[in-house]
């Protein structure tokens, strides 16, 4: 367990900050938004990220990975949170890569993981079916038909759903919702017959989609893991995704907070700097305290992925709940403390506010994770 970054991780942090500052600052997201970019991220940026090894940080060397661990991944994601950089990093290099790594056959791993590692293959997890994260409330059916399966159903809030090459679809192959047994993961080409993708424009200007599966035929070889037993893969994949998004939220909260503290030291009213007002000082200090707690929780949870996976469910819920609350608090306070300029589109703060709200909904809002934590505690 490590609650302090080692030298290599600190080095990675420095490289990531420098690279993103130069190549994917907040202004880049603005441009994607304002130009209504059809892809929603810059392919050249993703290629550069892959060359830096970011698409393969958590992958073992045998699949073209860096095997640098989740703490390393967390460092990079935190920096992308600071710059609000849009890329397939989360959906492909974290969620997709983890699903294949934990559930895939050797053949699937050997063909697909090196492609993800190289930034040549992107994936999206088609999971949610309602407006809240309910990972076992799956009604999308997978019916066996000879050597094939037929998938029918509708998915929503599929991150990178309109841009990914392949979809990892969570289906119900037996039983009824909300049973966690009877789920199966399928690998489906986004452009397969019967797949209809509708891009959704979200508040954070990042990629998501609603996807309809109408009698989509897939071969039995498209199953990831064991039929009816996807939960044993999906749950750890979601937990990895939760800690990853939490790392991004740490970065966005830190950036919004630091920009706000800087503003408190520069803005004058009543003839003094507003940072000298105790009403603002105490709120800023309380945020600092919460940031410190979240920092510890995040480091412990990232370490747990590699070192103590048996602790991951509880820690992942702790991390997502805590970071959800932090991101909400800090972005709200950032707008309020900036005053009038805080609600203008010209200032970046609003972009942090919006990204925070979307990230809160990814893989479980605060209520979801408090409930899960309480259940794991036995009450």
């Amino acid at each position, binding site marked *: 367990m490590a609650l302090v970054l080692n030298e290599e991780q600190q080095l990675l942090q420095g490289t990531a900050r420098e690279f993103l500052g130069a190549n994917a600052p907040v202004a880049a997201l603005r441009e994607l938004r304002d130009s209504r970019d059809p892809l929603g991220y810059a392919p050249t940026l993703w290629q550069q990220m892959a060359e830096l090894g970011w698409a393969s940080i958590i992958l073992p060397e045998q699949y073209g990975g860096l095997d640098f661990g989740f703490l390393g991944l967390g460092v990079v994601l935190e920096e992308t949170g600071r710059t609000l950089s849009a890329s397939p990093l989360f959906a492909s290099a974290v969620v997709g890569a983890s699903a294949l790594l934990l559930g895939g056959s050797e053949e699937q791993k050997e063909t697909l993981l090196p492609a993800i590692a190289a930034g040549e293959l992107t994936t999206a997890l088609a999971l949610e079916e309602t407006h809240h994260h309910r990972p076992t409330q799956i009604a999308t059916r997978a019916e066996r038909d000879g050597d094939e399966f037929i998938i029918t159903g509708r998915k929503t809030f599929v991150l990178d759903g309109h841009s990914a090459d392949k979809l990892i679809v969570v289906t119900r192959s037996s039983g009824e919702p909300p049973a966690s047994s009877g789920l199966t993961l399928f690998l489906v080409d986004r452009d397969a017959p019967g797949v209809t993708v509708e891009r959704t424009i979200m508040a954070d200007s990042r990629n998501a989609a609603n996807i309809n599966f109408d009698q989509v035929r897939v071969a039995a070889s498209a199953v990831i893991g064991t039929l009816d037993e996807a939960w044993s893969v999906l749950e750890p994949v979601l937990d990895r995704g939760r800690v990853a998004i939490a790392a991004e939220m740490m970065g966005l909260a830190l950036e919004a907070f630091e920009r706000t503290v800087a503003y408190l030291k520069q803005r004058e009213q009543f003839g*003094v700097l507003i940072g000298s007002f105790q009403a603002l000082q105490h709120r800023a200090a309380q945020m600092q305290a919460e940031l410190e707690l979240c920092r510890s929780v995040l480091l412990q949870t990232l370490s747990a992925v590699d070192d103590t996976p048996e602790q991951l469910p509880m820690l992942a819920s702790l991390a997502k709940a805590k970071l959800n609350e932090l991101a909400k608090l800090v972005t709200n306070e950032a707008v309020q403390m900036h005053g009038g300029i805080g609600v203008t589109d010209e200032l970046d703060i609003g972009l942090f506010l919006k990204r925070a709200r979307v990230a809160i909904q990814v893989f479980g809002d605060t209520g979801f994770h408090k409930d899960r934590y309480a*259940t794991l505690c036995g009450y």
Partner: protein
Amino acid sequence: MTAPVRRDILQDPEEFRSEVRQWLQDNCPESQRQPITAEEQFWGGRRGEFPSEDARLWFQRVRDKGWIAPEWPAQYGGGGLSAEQGKIIKDEMKRINARTPVYSIGIWMLGPAILEYGNEEQKQQHIRAIINAETRWAQGYSEPGAGSDLASLQCKAEDQGDHFLVNGSKIWTTNADKCDWIFCLVRTNPDVKKQEGISFLLIDMDSPGVSTTPIALISGESEFCQTFFDNVKVPKENLVGELNKGWSVAKALLVHERKLMAEIGSDSPRKIVAPNEAAHKYLEFENGKIVDAQLRSDLVDYNMQMHAIALTHFRTFEEKARGVHSAAALVMKYLGTEAEKTKSELLLAIMGSQGVGWEGDSFTAEELDTTRLWAMSKAMTIAGGSSEIQLNVIAKSVLELPQS
């Protein structure tokens, strides 16, 4: 008594840990591995008595091993160990629920300040006496007119050539009626900026003119006192640090007090029931879940906060061992004491009307303790620098916000 061997600080931590584990296994009496009650705490001092023969044995063994203060220099009776090794000893003692051999303001607060600011004579006189539990110390900081604004203190020490003449009073002097010595902040120069005219003085409480009165609190207890100084003669050599430089000594010492306040919940003398346990005892469950949605939500908020605080404690230890600086240690007093208050409120709510009994047979000892501790918990965010003062400190020293 053999002098403690100074450990090579490069010794493999895991090797050291197994040595510690073995030593504790061999030397900590079984009776000293049970939860402690307030009556069983040994506080030392001239009037201090061991609550039992095992307690005496346990204290003497730890003392002879040099582990009463593992990180203090061996020449004054400390262990001469590294911070990491000190942490290992603490962890291992906690693991077997070993009792704290001696409760001591001297160890927790004054000792580190004397080691940093005291002269050789003061170290010789006081450090070993603290480790040997021969002296019990009280703290004399606050005054009736100087609470959060501590620097405005008025208790004065006048230079009379060969001694100081002390007049004034100190409040919230914890258990001062049972203490032998008191360390005080006194006004030695009234004509300069308030922080610059304060000195740090050690006063023997047996000196003529010192008197102490207990103060009754909302919890029904009276462990806090007010101590009066009426023409008390204090030898010049009892000044710690330079004249009029007591504020720096006090600030260094406050850091220790805040660390202590932040940790206090983990070593509370009265055994407070854990909220999770209380929930199972007092609340209605359905399908493994607490029915009362508000209480379930409050409980999970508390548990998550404590989980995060515990991890942050570990992080501060790890950072200290690796020489990394962060703001984590500075926010712990605020977070730890606020969480203790939250816990007490939560327990009261979980116990319902059984949590608000004051005395009598209608309530269990645990219930009555919960009510009393709830009342006592209100002091946690006031003593040792109130939460508001903590936030001021964070705003100033971490965020470097402009001061008005």
